[in-house]
């Protein structure tokens, strides 16, 4: 793009500027924001063409498409921010199909008054997360809503990836007897976000677990036969409880878990005590849940633990035949109970 003095005589004031309605108006102010902030941070040929779409080479294999709106509050939290979350959250939904994520689209809904400095921090965080995950942000969109009609920034990312041949990890493939594994301790993202909410004066030594998991998924697919991995899913909103119920319902199986086997670190448990929460329903953003054929469970657990993002992995239970597809738990006490879906809105705006 040739840049003439006519284009943007003044640079964006990233130190003191704020988002104004004109930054979403389709005029020069918007183009300047896009070029000086978004394009500068995400630089890649498709994006730099500044068209309303990206034209990309033909992908070799089945396409995987995933989208997530991110509305986390607050925007910044220990271990991450809405930017890194928006990249990893969508990369992971692509990865859970056993796919290699390639490209992201990013759409921003900005609230009038948002400090440009905050937006710049978020955008740089997205750029770092995308770079770390090896994906390119190739197209995007920016809208601005009046103060009081949004909440700082919402980011919707959409990911495109290519599925490995022969891999099918849909939620309907669990069978009685299959093992259920998690890649690490639960609830760290949700607690890290909650602990820095206004009005919650907690000091919690917990950082968000947000991470891109497609590398871990590739390691798992390399470790066992493709058909052995029945289901992959990341236990985000609604936590382990909701995710397992989704799978149980889709596959029409029951599950039997052992509470003592489910990894939850002590500060997360303690924060849950203070807040009256159950860690089984607290969101992760860098953990995966795998259902796998029982004969490969050991190899899969070993592969998980061998990867930096799976060191805290555990086998937490197995699937059973159950016409009511209940998720049941043997409690630490030796009693039994149902693990239902999360009821109500335990933790709003966590992702």
């Amino acid at each position, binding site marked *: 793009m040739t840049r003439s003095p006519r284009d943007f005589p003044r640079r964006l004031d990233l130190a003191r500027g704020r988002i104004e309605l004109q930054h979403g108006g389709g005029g020069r102010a918007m183009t300047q924001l896009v070029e000086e902030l978004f394009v500068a941070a995400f630089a890649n040929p498709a994006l730099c063409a500044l068209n309303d779409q990206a034209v990309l080479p033909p992908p070799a294999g089945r396409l995987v498409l995933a989208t997530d709106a991110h509305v986390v509050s607050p925007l910044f939290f220990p271990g991450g921010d809405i930017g890194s979350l928006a990249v990893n959250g969508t990369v992971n939904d692509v990865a859970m199909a056993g796919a290699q994520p390639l490209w992201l689209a990013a759409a921003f809904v900005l609230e009038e008054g948002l400090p440009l400095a905050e937006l710049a921090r978020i955008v740089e965080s997205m750029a770092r997360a995308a770079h770390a995950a090896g994906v390119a942000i190739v197209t995007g969109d920016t809208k601005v809503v009046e103060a009081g009609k949004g909440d700082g920034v919402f980011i919707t990312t959409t990911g495109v990836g290519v599925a490995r041949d022969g891999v099918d990890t849909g939620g309907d493939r669990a069978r009685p007897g299959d093992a259920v594994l998690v890649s690490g301790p639960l609830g760290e993202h949700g607690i890290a976000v909650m602990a820095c909410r206004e009005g919650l004066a907690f000091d919690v030594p917990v950082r968000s677990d947000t991470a891109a998991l497609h590398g871990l998924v590739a390691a798992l697919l390399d470790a066992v036969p493709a058909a052995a991995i029945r289901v992959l899913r990341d236990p985000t909103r609604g936590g382990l409880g909701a995710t397992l119920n989704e799978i149980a319902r889709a596959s029409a199986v029951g599950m039997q878990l052992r509470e003592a086997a489910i990894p939850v670190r002590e500060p997360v448990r303690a924060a849950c*005590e203070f807040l009256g929460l159950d860690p089984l329903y607290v969101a992760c953003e860098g953990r995966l849940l795998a259902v796998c054929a029982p004969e490969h469970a050991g190899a899969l657990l070993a592969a998980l633990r061998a990867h930096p993002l799976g060191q805290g992995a555990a086998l937490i239970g197995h699937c059973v035949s159950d016409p009511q597809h*209940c998720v049941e738990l043997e409690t630490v006490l*030796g*009693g*039994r109970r*149902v693990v239902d879906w999360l009821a109500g809105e335990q933790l709003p705006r966590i992702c």
Partner: protein
Amino acid sequence: MKYLDEFRDGGLARGLAAAIAREVDPARAYRLMEFCGGHTHAIARYGLTGLLPANIQLIHGPGCPVCVLPVGRLQMAIELALRPGVILASYGDMLRVPGAGGDSLLAARARGADVRMVYAVDDALALARRHPQREVVFFAIGFETTTPPTAVAIRRAAAEGLGNFSVFCNHVLTPPAMAAILDAPEGTRLDGIIGPAHVSTVIGTSPYAFVPERHGKPVMVAGFEPLDVLHAVRLLVAQLGAGHATVGNAYTRVVAEHGNRKAQALMDEVFTVREQFEWRGLGTLAHSALRIRECYAAFDAERRFAPAEVAVTEHKGCECPAILRGAKQPQDCRLFGGACTPEHPLGACMVSSEGACAAHYLYGRWRAA
């Protein structure tokens, strides 16, 4: 987590369960009421029923403040929340309790009311400091556990001259509710009561003395950890086996006979007993609730805003009243799990995880049958 994990130990639980099984009289039934929602929650959350002999039946009591508040009081809170300029702050579960015609504080918020969830009364004070031009009303509910913090907050507001803070007081008293339960026909069939944990922290064990004295039944104060509940059951079985009926204490690490005298004095300074108050399920009970004393009238939302008292009827078919009296179980309600779920509660007992219906729905309904 010290003093928590030890009281959730699976090995110790098996030992206590074995002791109960050994000590129980197989020839008789034990109908024990767990008075508090905290007990109800622990029983469901840890699957305690499965560890007890079949002839020990645990019956939910009325000790859930969210559950016993009648719809009329909730409607007053909704009315306050909808007033221009008012911020109504409350503890989380209250927001979803169904009011008249399916209304709720959350629904009022969706219609534009400014309703905030707080974790502590001090957060409501902070809201009042942060929004000096607004009226912050704290919707106070709870038994004697939650009352002393409200008293401290009102004293602080007075000391600070925080003129835009007030309290809509719905604090209720445990002993009159326990008396009402025991006076009801269902109550006479109880064999003993697992007594309140943290209420007793404040009021001590002595206020329950009327239970053995007037009704000839034992009360065993118990903590909310699962081993505390098993421990209390074991001690009640022992008393019943020995033909005793006293007020016992299975929560000695926290509860003393005369409670926390400082907390009692603070409550007494700020609150006084109402002539009468309506409870869901128990009807109107004399001297069963608190109101703010004259000297703190400026902080009393009922005096300040005079919300209209409305006669409201509960949802037809909801069995909460009978469940709160111990007369019915959640599964006796024909709305349970169908029309009434935690996502769309028709009664208060389906809201909080300490409510009998919610506990049963979340943790056990499919296996209970």
